[in-house]
Structures are given as structure tokens and as C-alpha cells.
């Protein structure tokens, strides 16, 4: 009966109640989306690279090196010479290396020059290997393997020709149109920046930057007589024979005499990133909680105003036998119902929003954001919301209780 009274009383004041529900739903959407995207960004970033012990690039900040080498965000300050790379990769403690050569693009998607070791050693998530959806690794100079998103978005299939552009702008006027590449493989989705990357051989990168318009064709094999050994690369990933030697190898690279280098541990660089992001996150969360507080105060004000309109109703309930605490509980229940409806609306809107923005977040920001918003954290937020709603409604409820006690005068 209390539920019916509360529900019908709210329905009777649908104008103000609806506005309160909307205010609370919007504040919850802000809070939950900030928190969800924050968590998902961390998960997404953390699962982008797995099993890589060190990332080596020219001397720059660890964060910059991590961002451009793994997440394709920003640009390198300088390149590493091929000689240095060859020397370091033949270090007895080094098990494997994946060279990375950046600088070109195709319709806004980054092109990464590498070797077939990328397909062998690169892991993401929980040491998950790269898998092919269709086709195979590149074997010729002008072969290209597409990330899942590139193939889907640009509607490419095997054997399609692709012309790379010099530079990384979405619109480029400097095209390598003398050397079109051929799609030989399309990768399965990984939820990492690999999905938005075009993978070509280092020789392919070298070839398009040489002035070989006349004597070099797209059919040239990798083992052709022409020397396509690159002079430099952007960075490289490194796997060691033993984790125990990580710091020793890192130190020796950082102190390398022939070239200024920087070796970073991906996990440590990510921690630096979260540290920098931490204060921004906290400010965003604080703003979100303040917005929620404002909506709770709005709820309290709406209920308080309604008590003044409901003297007759309260008097009636008292006279037919309702104890004063019953009136208190009806107002609390009304507040709880508003909170539950707001929560339901915010969850639906957030789920739909994330569902429709998933592709944009992935393509624009490289973020794999899950639509699953029913997490333990979300449950905690709802617990907090319910508790604060009860507290916020305590003032109008107490007012209703007092009205019930003294109204008879």
C-alpha cells in the first residue's frame, strides 16, 4: 500500500517529478560515463601490448616513446640507425625484436613498417597472438596486411591495391602513387591500435622513399638484388631471454655511447601515464559527483515543496490511523523510486550511447570501450546514490513527519 501511495503521489506530480528524474539521470550518466570510460581506457591501454620487455627509441620521454610506438599517438623526435638496431638485437640477452618504422599513412590510418617477427612475437591482452582473418603475412616488398578496422572501414579485401601517403595527415598531397601496395592479409580484430594500422615490410617503406620510379616494380621480391635495407627505424620492441636481465639491458641501452637511446618498460611508462592522468581523472570525478549532489539537492527541494502542498493528504492519512513515521517513510520511498527510475534511465541511455559510440571511440581515440556497464563499480555508485538519496530525502521526510505530528492544531 505504501508503494501504491508513493507511486501514485509521484504520478500526480509528474511535471516536477519528471524534471527531477531527468536531472538525476543526466548527473548519473555523466558520473558513470566518466568512470566507465576511465576504467575502460586503462584496460584498453594496458591490454594493447603484452609480453614486450622493453621498448627502445631515440632519447625522449618514456611516455612519448610509449605513445608513438604502441598507441600511434604523437610523433618520434628522431630515428634509430639500422646499425644500432642490428647491434642491439644481436645482444645475447635479447630473444627477439620487432622493428617499427612510422611516418606514412593511408586515408588517416597509420602505416607501420616492420618485419614478419611482428606476427610471430607481438602479443596483446593476456598474451594473445595476432591472428589472420584472411590471407597471410607480407612476403613481397609491396605487400600490405590490414588491421581489422582499416579493412572494414575502407571496405578492402584481399588483392586490392592501396596507395600510401607520405606523412600522417588524413588528407595528403604527397602520395606514393608510383608504388601501389597489394592487400595480402587482413587481421582479426584485437581491440588495440593494430586494428587501425596498415602493416608493411621495412623494405616496402624503404622502397617507396627511394626514387625508383623507373626500375622498381611492385612485383619485386624481398630477396631481390636491390638493397632495401633501411637506414633507420623509428623504434623497436624487445623480448629478452630472461626477465631477470631487464633492468641490466635497459641500463646498457640508456647508456649506449654511439647514439642517444631510451629504453622503457611498457608497464612503468603506463603507470607514469596514469599518474599524469590521475589528477585530471580526479577533477572529472569530482565535477561528476558535484553534479550528482546538485541533482540530489534538487530532489530534496522538490520533495520539500511538495510537503507544503500535501498538508491535507498528510492530515487525512493521520486521521485514518497512519503513524507519523509512516508519512516519513512514504516521502523516503518517493525519493528512492525517483532514484531507481533515474538509475534505470541512465543505464539505458549510457548503454545505448556506448553501443553507438563504440566505433567512434575506437577509430578516433583507439579506445576499445566495452558496453558492459553492469560492473561492481557501477553497483557501488548505485549503492552510494541510494544512500545519499535517503540522506537528501531525510530533510523533506522529517518535515512531513513534523507536519504529521503538529498538523492537527
Amino acid at each position, binding site marked *: 500500500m505504501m508503494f501504491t*501511495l508513493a507511486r501514485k503521489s509521484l504520478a500526480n506530480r509528474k511535471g516536477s517529478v519528471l524534471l527531477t528524474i531527468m536531472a538525476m539521470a543526466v548527473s548519473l550518466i555523466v558520473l558513470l560515463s566518466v568512470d566507465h570510460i576511465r576504467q575502460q581506457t586503462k584496460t584498453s591501454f594496458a591490454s594493447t601490448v603484452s609480453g614486450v620487455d622493453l621498448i627502445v627509441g631515440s632519447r625522449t620521454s618514456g611516455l612519448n616513446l610509449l605513445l608513438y610506438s604502441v598507441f600511434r599517438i604523437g610523433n618520434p623526435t628522431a630515428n634509430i640507425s639500422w646499425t644500432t638496431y642490428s647491434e642491439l638485437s644481436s645482444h645475447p640477452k635479447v630473444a627477439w625484436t620487432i622493428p617499427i618504422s612510422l611516418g606514412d599513412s593511408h586515408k588517416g590510418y597509420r602505416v607501420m613498417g616492420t618485419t614478419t617477427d611482428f606476427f610471430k612475437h607481438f602479443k596483446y591482452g593476456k598474451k594473445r597472438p595476432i591472428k589472420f582473418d584472411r590471407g597471410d603475412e607480407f612476403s613481397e616488398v609491396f605487400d600490405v596486411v590490414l588491421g581489422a578496422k582499416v579493412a572494414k572501414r575502407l571496405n578492402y579485401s584481399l588483392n586490392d591495391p592501396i596507395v600510401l601517403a607520405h606523412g600522417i595527415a588524413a588528407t595528403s598531397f604527397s602520395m606514393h602513387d608510383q608504388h601501389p601496395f597489394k592487400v595480402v592479409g587482413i587481421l582479426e580484430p584485437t581491440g588495440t591500435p593494430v586494428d587501425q594500422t596498415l602493416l608493411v615490410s621495412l623494405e616496402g617503406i624503404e622502397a617507396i622513399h627511394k626514387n625508383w620510379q623507373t626500375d622498381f616494380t611492385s612485383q619485386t621480391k624481398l630477396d631481390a638484388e636491390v638493397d632495401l635495407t633501411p637506414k633507420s627505424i623509428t623504434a623497436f620492441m624487445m623480448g629478452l631471454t630472461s626477465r631477470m636481465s631487464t633492468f641490466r639491458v635497459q641500463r646498457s641501452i640508456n647508456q649506449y655511447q654511439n647514439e642517444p637511446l631510451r629504453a622503457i618498460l611498457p608497464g612503468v611508462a603506463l603507470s607514469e601515464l596514469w599518474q599524469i592522468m590521475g589528477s585530471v581523472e580526479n577533477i572529472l570525478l569530482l565535477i561528476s559527483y558535484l553534479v550528482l549532489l546538485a541533482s540530489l539537492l534538487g530532489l530534496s527541494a522538490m520533495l520539500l515543496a511538495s510537503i507544503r502542498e500535501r498538508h491535507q493528504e498528510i492530515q487525512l*492519512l493521520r486521521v485514518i490511523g*497512519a503513524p507519523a513515521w509512516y508519512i516519513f517513510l512514504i516521502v523516503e520511498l518517493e525519493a528512492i523510486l525517483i532514484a531507481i527510475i533515474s538509475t534505470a534511465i541512465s543505464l539505458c541511455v549510457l548503454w545505448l550511447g556506448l553501443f553507438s559510440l563504440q566505433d567512434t571511440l575506437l577509430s578516433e581515440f583507439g579506445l576499445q570501450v566495452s558496453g558492459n556497464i553492469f560492473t561492481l563499480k557501477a553497483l557501488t555508485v548505485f549503492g552510494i546514490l541510494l544512500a545519499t538519496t535517503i540522506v537528501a530525502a531525510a530533510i523533506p521526510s522529517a518535515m512531513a513527519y513534523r507536519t504529521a505530528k503538529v498538523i492537527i492544531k
Partner: protein
Amino acid sequence: MTVNIKQLRFGYSPSPEDSIINIESWKLNENEQVFLHGPSGCGKSTLLNLISGLVPYTSGDLSVLNQDLSRMTSSQRDRFRANNIGCVFQGLNLIPYLSAIENIQPASRFANQNPTIEDIHALLDSLQLDAKSWRKPSSDLSMGQKQRVAIARALINRPKLIIADEPTSSLDQSNRNGFMQLLMDKVAEEHCALILVSHDLELKSYFSRVESFQDINIAGDKS
């Protein structure tokens, strides 16, 4: 004895000079119907609030259905009122967004009596309320229909006492007569006592016992 008052004094301020109610002795027998008349503001409604236990009195004796209300806690008085006293008020006081049935149900729930929906239907039927209006919001009911619902709500728990506080003050003459006839018929049928207070002296024709409130309330005399 339905109501027995001895030397009852009550005022909202602690000073005896500010008493609103000062009744030496007053009684209401079982199945008796009394009409108390007096001008507005003379304390009639306060007496009804004291009898129904909504307001605790400060001194004297007041027993309702042989129960001393001063010995009860606030929640016991609420329960006692829900179980034994039916109330009809000025303006009939229905909750406008609830249907006729929903207006009646809380009264029985607070009394811990759980009449079936059929019992409520039978009561509304006996009050000649059209079945089509049972589930309409009471704001959509006519004044005559509202009167019937208000009486049904007062009678649902089969109370031994009904108190009516200016129930006809907002009714026109035709509705007033209809309401009074219906109320008196039902009170007689249910064998319950009735205290009706009003400033409208025309209502005295429905009662065998008519008293001026100022005759029984000495405090009223002082003022």
C-alpha cells in the same frame, strides 16, 4: 459507554488560562448519535481530535470505548483510532489521485484488518455507488459519489464510533441532505455511535440529541 469525559482540560500552551477545552462532564452512550453545534473556532474540532487520540490531553479523564487514551502510546492511539473510530471531514478529504477503492484500502490496512476486495465492493454497492466509478480517480467523481466514498472509508473497519467534523460545510443544500440521510441510515444499520460537529443548525433535525458545544465547554464560555 462510548465516550466518557470528566474534568477534561486542554490547551496548546501550558497555562491553564489558555485552555481551549474545559469540560466538567460529558458522556456518549453506545449507538447514540449526538449533534454538537457551535460557531467556528470554539474548539469543536479540538474535542474531536482529543477523542480520536490525535492530540494527547493535558489533564482530566477521557475514555473512549472504555479505554483510557492517556495510558496509550502515540502508536497505540493511532492503532486504536484506525480500529475503532471512523472519521468524516470537512470537504470529505479524499486523496484526489487515488480511486474510490484505493481511498478506502489504507483505512483498513492501518487497522490491520484485511477486508477482501469483495468486502469493499459490497460496501460501495450498499452505498449505491456505481461500479464504473470504483476505479476512477476520486478527483473525477461527482460530489455525491465522493460523499459515498467518504462514508464507505469511515465504515470499512466496522467502527463503534464515527466522528464527523463539519462534513457538510462545502456541500450545497441538495448534496447536504443526501449526505446526511445516507450517513444516518448507515450509522443506524451498523449500530455505531456518532458525534457530528457543525455550525449549521439545520442539521439538528437528523438527531435526537442536540447540544450546544459552548454549553459543555466552560473554556469556550470564558472566551
